[in-house]
């Protein structure tokens, strides 16, 4: 290759690289706030893949665009292009490079996964809480490696109910203290539901008749959304709940407050929509599973 060609190629690669790194940084803004340890880890991995992906996409699209602009046949040019059947070196290179990239991505993903140390239902035994989580936190806090007492999560068509067994409190809003590992035991009496809090980047299906253990660590106070992520029938889209992450003091206070309240029926989107639909004389839809009656809980917003 001529020196000039090499120089041009290097210049192009550097430009593409710069753009890719910029897009990779931008990718953080496409995601919800980082409200859990897991979210930081996942976002870094995502940003890395966006950087790589941008480079590849721009490389391929750029090459194709260049060809289309500059290798066009003239209007009356009926000749063929050069008879090039292939190039072994090139073909080896473009097999080997993707392979190495894939290895790199796989190793990075694996490391991230280990750091998240998500406990699937198959790993019911208490694992020592991953010490590797700690460095990911700005200030490692002792409690964060201590699993919290269980919160029981019940997902049913179409309501979320949270129970704090130690205080015997039930709620339709999930309250969590900040910087403490949360340990949930999730159940469903009917169909598969999915526990998904986008701001935490965590998701887990809840298989009926199984206890699903699930853990994560919120690190940012605020109000977030919990959504059902596994299609569960008619009112699936309405099966949402708020998640409140608060300081330990606020959390304790909330628990105390909730304990004072005697259980009463909470508002339930599915049940109220269903009731409204049944009242209309002209029926607008098809038969549906009847939503569970609104949960009776100590606390509801």
């Amino acid at each position, binding site marked *: 290759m001529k020196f000039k060609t090499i120089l041009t190629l290097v210049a192009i690669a550097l430009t593409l690289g710069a753009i890719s790194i910029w897009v990779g940084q931008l990718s953080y803004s*496409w*995601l*919800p706030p980082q409200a859990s340890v897991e979210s930081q*880890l*996942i976002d870094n*991995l*995502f940003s890395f*893949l966006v950087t790589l*992906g941008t480079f*590849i*996409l721009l490389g*391929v699209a750029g*090459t*194709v665009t260049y*060809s*289309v602009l500059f*290798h*066009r*046949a003239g209007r009356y040019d*009926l000749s*063929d*292009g050069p*008879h*090039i*059947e*292939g*190039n072994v070196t*090139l*073909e080896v290179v473009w*097999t080997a490079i*993707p392979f190495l990239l*894939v290895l790199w*991505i*796989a190793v990075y*993903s694996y490391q991230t*996964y280990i750091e*998240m140390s998500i406990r699937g239902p198959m790993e019911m035994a208490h694992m020592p809480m991953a010490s590797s989580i700690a460095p990911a936190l700005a200030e490692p806090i002792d409690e964060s490696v201590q699993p919290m007492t269980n919160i029981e999560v019940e997902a049913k068509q179409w309501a979320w109910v949270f129970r704090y067994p130690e205080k015997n409190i039930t709620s339709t809003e999930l309250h969590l203290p900040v910087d403490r590992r949360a340990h949930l035991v999730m159940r469903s009496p*009917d169909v*598969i539901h*999915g526990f*998904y809090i*986008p701001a935490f*980047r*965590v*998701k887990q*299906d809840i*298989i*009926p008749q199984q206890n699903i253990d699930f853990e994560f660590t919120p690190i940012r106070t605020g109000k977030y959304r919990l959504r059902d*992520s*596994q*299609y*569960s*029938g008619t009112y*699936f*889209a309405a099966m949402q709940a708020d998640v409140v992450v608060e300081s330990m003091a606020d959390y304790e206070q909330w628990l105390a407050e909730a304990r004072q309240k005697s259980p009463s029926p909470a508002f339930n989107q599915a049940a109220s929509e269903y009731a409204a639909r049944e009242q209309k004389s002209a029926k*607008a*839809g*098809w*038969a*549906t599973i009847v939503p569970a009656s609104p949960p009776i809980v100590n606390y509801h917003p």
Partner: protein
Amino acid sequence: MTQIAPKKLPIEADSHEELLSWRRYFSFSTDHKVIGIQYIVTAFFFYLVAGIFAMIMRGELITPEPDLVDRTVYNALFTMHGTIMLFGWMFPVLAGFANYLVPIMIGARDMAFPRLNAVAFWMVPVFGIMFILSFLVPGGPAQAGWWSYPPVSVQNPTGQWLNGEFIWLLAVTISGVSSIMGAVNIVTTILRMRCPGMSWFKMPVFVWTVLAAQIIQLFGLPALTAGAVMLLCDLSFGTTFFDPSQGGNPVLFQHFFWFYSHPAVYVMILPVFGIFSEVFPVYARKPLFGYKVVAVSSLIITGLSAVVWVHHMFASGTPGWMRMLFMFSTMLISVPTGIKVFAWVGTIWGGKIRLDTPMLFALGGLINFVFSGITGIMLSSVPIDIHVNNTYFVVGHFHYVIYGAIVFGLYGGIYHWFPKMTGKMYYEGLGKLHFWLTFIGTTLNFLPMHPLGLMGMPRRVASYDPEFAFWNVLASIGAFLLGMSTVPFLINMVSSWIAGKKAGDNPWRAIGLEWLLSSPPDVENFEELPIVIAEPYGYGKSEPLTENMG
């Protein structure tokens, strides 16, 4: 049917054929070319039906509230949209392409089993109409998504035995049987019916990819069909294979389903890889770069596609080791896929490029495919998938593949072989208009789904939080644009088929057995079987393809 008529006077033959030609398409013909076009046109009808469902869905999603249709209706619409698009459009249209092209590309007079072929085709309108009629039963059509995961799918709120889900399962089973029959036929044809000289490495890549795809049908479809039958028994005959409250295992169904349905995505994309590999050399006037590697990588993809299905179940309570294993196998698929992408880019590079409509669609499809491959790698990375699984990000990913790459490739293929199939030329201006509407519509419709998924909007929702409104409005506008883009296409196809200019046998100056035939080809394709002496794609090197033809 096919006795060789004595040579008629040219004029007489013309008018006679004209008369017969449209009627043949409504008959139980065993001519692979007729069946091919029957498949394509029937599939296109179902494509329009499922497209209308999509328009209604996007109409609902243009506002956050569930205000256009009842939630049950929305759920039925997305279920039937996905189902009809896949079983009514994708598989049949691809079977149509394979039927039409494989015999004339390998120098055969017909498929190996012409009658089986016709039976397989006529099952398509049967199950397609079952899907549509299921809107009329009490309780409406199936509402459990195209995955039909139990327990939701067997809840049956009407309590009647004749319900939407029942018809759905029956129709899917019939579709599976039809596809298996098609696969047996196509694979046998490729293995046994090649003309003299048509060795493996003289076959066009399209034939390789069809072979690779149909092998998947043979090993995968039995799993799906078994799963569907077991689910049907759970629904209607009191078994409890998948019923967790009776000791059954609902996750087992997911394995049955994805063991087929992941490879199924390669059943769809592989032949489109084939179309790309046919189109690029013609319109760049260069041989396919690295032909043999491109051909063989198809079979590698077939092999790998059988061992990745769990990447659809990363959030289903899958143990860690399994997640890691399937993450890696999934990522590996991008290696043989990347080989193809680079080969196409190498083909175009330095060519004499002509931007006719087929080339435009192939180029657009290539770029869209690269994009979707990148999001695919992101999805295969377990930590990222835990966040975006079951969100609009996945919907964006697979629509980029299925619409952006596959439908683009199919459109490209239709334009490319339209002169061969009909003997007429389509209108180039309408074709270009169609391309640009489709490209802009696709981008506007499916690109916004990625930010939506990253923000945490679940898929399959009839309503959503107001924070998602902006991107949803864009997506809906894109969808309506896509709907409109089919208008110039339909006008183009119908009017040029009826009144288009005569195309001649080889309007693209393409190299390939099919281009040595008349347009449209005679009933028997080849008067005398060709003897192939050259590798395909001999552009830039004037050598004859066969010893005895043209």
